C-alpha cells in the first residue's frame, strides 16, 4: 500500500533505474555498482561516464577534488602576483635599455665614416651554432615548456639537414632534465635561472656565450625563448644573439631585423578589473648629441665596452619575457584546472546525493515491507 505508493512516486521521477537500485537494496546497499551511469539520464549530461562505487568512496573523492581545487586556485593567485613582479622588473630595466640605445645611436652616427671591427660583430662563415634554450623550472604551466622544447628540436633538425653542428646551452630545470635524458644532443652547459632573473644569471649566460664566440668555437649564437604576446598567448621565438649588429638591431634567424629603438615592451595593467597586456613601442627620442663629446678612448674600444652591455640586456630581457610567459601560462592552466575541479565536484555531489537518497529509499522500503510481512 504505502510501499507501492512510494515506488510509483519514485518511478515517476527522473531516474528509471531507481527501481533497479531499490530491488537490489536487500543485498548490500553500500556496495552498489551502478550499471548505468546515473547522471547520464538526467537533464545535464556530462561528456564522460562516471563510474563510482559507493557512498564512502564518493565522499572521499569529493573531498579530494575540493582540496585539489583549493590548491589550483592558490597557485593561480600566486602566479598572478608573480606576473606583477615580473612586469615591475621589466619596467625597472627600461632606463638602462633606453639610455644604451641612445648612446649606441649617437656613437654610430659619429662613427659612420669609419669602419669598425669589434670582435662581437664579426660575421664568420657558420660551421657551428650555439643554441641557448630558455625553459621554466617548474611544471603545471600548460604547454609552455613543451612548446619551447619542440621549437628547439625543430631548429636542431633544420641544422642537421644543413649540416651545421651545434651545441645547446640549457637554462631552466625543465630543459635540463629533457636534455639530460637525451645524451645524443651535445649540451654545453646546464644553467638555472631561479625565481627572478637578475643580472648575475644573465651575466653567467653572457660569459658562456661570449667566450664560445670569441674563442671561435662557435660562429653564431641563437637564443630560443618564449615571447610574451598576451595573457593567453605566448610565442616561442628564435633570435640571433651573436654576432651583434653594430647598430644594435635585434635580428631574427631569417635576417629580419628590428631596430632596437623601436623595440616593443609589454606592460601588464588592469582594465575594468581584468588583467590586460599593453604593448608599448618604445620610441626613444634621440636628441642631437653634443658634438663636443670627446671619446676618452678609441671609438672601437668604446663600442667594445658597449656591445657586451647590449648582450647582457638582451639576455636579461629574454629571461624576463620567458618568465612572464611561464607565469601567464601557469595562471591559465590553473584557472582551467580550478574550473574543471568545480564542475567535477558538482557532478560527484549530485551522484552522491542521488545514491544517498536511493539508499534511504531502499531502507524505508525494507522496513515497510518487513512491517507488512509481520501484519
Amino acid at each position, binding site marked *: 500500500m504505502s510501499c507501492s505508493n512510494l515506488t510509483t512516486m519514485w518511478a515517476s521521477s527522473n531516474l528509471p533505474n531507481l527501481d533497479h537500485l531499490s530491488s537490489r537494496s536487500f543485498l548490500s546497499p553500500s556496495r552498489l555498482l551502478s550499471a548505468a551511469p546515473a547522471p547520464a539520464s538526467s537533464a545535464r549530461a556530462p561528456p564522460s561516464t562516471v563510474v563510482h562505487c559507493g557512498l564512502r568512496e564518493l565522499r572521499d573523492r569529493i573531498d579530494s577534488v575540493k582540496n585539489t581545487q583549493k590548491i589550483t586556485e592558490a597557485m593561480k593567485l600566486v602566479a598572478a602576483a608573480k606576473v606583477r613582479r615580473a612586469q615591475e*622588473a621589466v619596467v*625597472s*630595466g627600461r*632606463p*638602462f*635599455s633606453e*639610455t*644604451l640605445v641612445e*648612446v649606441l645611436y649617437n*656613437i654610430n652616427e659619429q662613427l659612420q665614416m669609419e669602419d669598425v671591427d669589434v670582435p662581437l660583430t664579426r660575421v664568420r662563415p657558420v660551421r657551428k651554432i650555439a643554441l641557448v634554450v630558455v625553459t621554466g623550472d617548474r611544471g603545471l604551466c600548460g604547454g609552455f615548456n613543451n612548446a619551447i622544447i619542440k621549437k628547439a628540436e625543430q631548429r636542431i633538425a633544420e641544422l642537421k639537414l644543413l649540416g651545421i653542428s651545434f651545441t645547446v646551452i640549457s637554462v631552466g630545470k625543465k630543459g635540463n632534465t629533457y636534455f639530460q635524458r637525451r645524451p645524443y644532443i651535445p649540451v654545453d652547459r646546464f644553467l638555472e635561472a631561479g625565481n627572478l*632573473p*637578475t*643580472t*648575475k644569471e*644573465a*651575466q653567467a649566460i653572457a*660569459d*658562456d656565450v*661570449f*667566450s*664560445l664566440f*670569441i*674563442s671561435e*668555437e662557435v660562429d653564431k649564437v641563437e637564443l630560443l625563448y618564449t615571447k610574451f604576446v598576451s595573457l593567453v598567448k605566448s610565442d616561442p621565438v628564435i633570435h640571433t644573439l651573436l654576432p651583434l649588429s653594430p647598430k644594435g638591431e635585434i635580428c631574427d634567424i631569417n635576417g629580419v631585423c628590428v631596430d632596437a629603438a623601436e623595440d616593443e615592451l609589454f606592460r601588464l595593467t588592469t582594465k575594468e578589473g581584468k588583467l590586460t597586456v599593453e604593448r608599448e613601442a618604445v620610441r626613444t627620442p634621440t636628441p642631437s648629441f*653634443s658634438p*663636443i*663629446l*670627446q*671619446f*676618452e*678612448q678609441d671609438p672601437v*674600444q*668604446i663600442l*667594445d*665596452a*658597449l656591445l*657586451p*652591455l647590449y648582450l*647582457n*640586456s638582451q639576455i*636579461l630581457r629574454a629571461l624576463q619575457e620567458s618568465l612572464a610567459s611561464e607565469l601567464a601560462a601557469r595562471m591559465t592552466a590553473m584557472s582551467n584546472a580550478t574550473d574543471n575541479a568545480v564542475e567535477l565536484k558538482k557532478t560527484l555531489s549530485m551522484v552522491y546525493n542521488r545514491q544517498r537518497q536511493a539508499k534511504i529509499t531502499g531502507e524505508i522500503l525494507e522496513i515497510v515491507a518487513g512491517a507488512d510481512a509481520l501484519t
Partner: protein
Amino acid sequence: MTLNLCVLTPNRIIWDSEVKEIILSTNSGQIGVLPNHAPIATAVDIGLLRIRLNNDQWLTVALMGGFARIGNNEITILGNDAEISTDIDPQEAQQALEIAEANLSRAKGKRQAIEANLALRRARTRVEAVNVISY
C-alpha cells in the same frame, strides 16, 4: 654645483642622486670627475667606483665594466652589474674569490681561460670594494 650621478644596470637603477665627486676606473686608467668636467664618453673597466657624497663621505661601488658618459654635470654610468660595498657580504666575497682562483688554475683551453679570468677579476673587485680603506 653638484654632479647628478645615475648608475644603471640591466635590471635596476643602482644610484640616482647628487654627488660631489666620483673616481672612475676606465680602460685607460682612473679618472676623477669634479663638477663642470668636460664632456667625455668612456668605457669603464671592471673595478671600483668611488663616490664622494654631499657630506664628504666616500662610498664604494663594485662596478663590473660598462660605459660612462659625462657631460653638463650629468654622469650616466651603464654597468653590466654594480654592487654597493655595503651590500656585499665579506665572507661570501672572499669565498667567491677563492673559487674563482681555483677555477682559473684548472682552466684548460682558451675559452675556459677567458671565462675564468673574467670571473676572477669580478671576484677580486668585490673583495676590494669591501676592504677599501675609506678616508
